[in-house]
């Protein structure tokens, strides 16, 4: 799988990143600080070793990076329209992501905590529906399989 290079976009209090490197949740949280914020909610998706009877060795992610950034930007704007989002961040890793490592991290800051949870949940749910990223499971027995929800 091609590793690719990082693509990044910042502006309007939004930090978008598609990168083959590890995700930095501390930096994401720092980027969300805002004098009008009372709450920050961050969700991080990590590679899980066991799903039912299957043992995952690692995940390999492929992204259509330019469009992934564009879709993530659209989601950030949609969240801003629905909740009083002050800042947001959507980061996705590409390439091989080992067990326990982070493939995705999204976060928002808002004046109060309810809306932080709601907007963060919205971003990760929608990201999984529309952002053009695909994962291939690599199982402990050596088999590999593209994950294709609904297919």
């Amino acid at each position, binding site marked *: 799988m091609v590793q690719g290079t990082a693509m990044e976009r910042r502006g309007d209090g939004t930090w978008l990143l598609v990168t083959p490197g590890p995700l930095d949740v501390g930096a994401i949280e720092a980027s969300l600080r805002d004098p009008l914020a009372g709450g920050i909610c961050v969700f991080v998706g990590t590679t899980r070793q066991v799903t039912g009877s299957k043992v995952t060795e690692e995940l390999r992610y492929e992204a259509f990076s330019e469009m992934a950034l564009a879709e993530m930007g659209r989601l950030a704007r949609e969240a801003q329209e629905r909740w009083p989002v002050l800042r947001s961040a959507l980061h996705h890793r590409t390439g091989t992501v080992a067990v326990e490592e982070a493939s995705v991290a999204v976060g928002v800051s808002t004046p109060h905590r309810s809306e932080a949870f709601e907007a963060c949940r919205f971003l990760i749910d929608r990201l*999984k529906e529309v952002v*053009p990223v695909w994962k291939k499971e690599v199982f402990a027995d050596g088999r590999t399989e593209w994950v*294709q929800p609904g297919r």
Partner: protein
Amino acid sequence: MVASPPVTVRLFSVLKDRTGMAVIELESGGVPTVAAALTVLGERYPVIAEYRRWIRPAINLSYADEASPLSPGDELALITPVSGG
């Protein structure tokens, strides 16, 4: 006579693996719509016909649909069900 720029088709994930192609160029005159492009591609690559009902097309980085028109120079991406996160 100057040739029109082609429609550039981008493939990912399972379609890239099974066709062996990441980019395909189509002569734009023959594919006025996404549907026409998918038909042409499906004839050349059976896996694209097989996946057609699950493909969400995107034109120039935005989701579109089969009825969407294609213009010379457009980039058409074939987005199979995504599984990021």
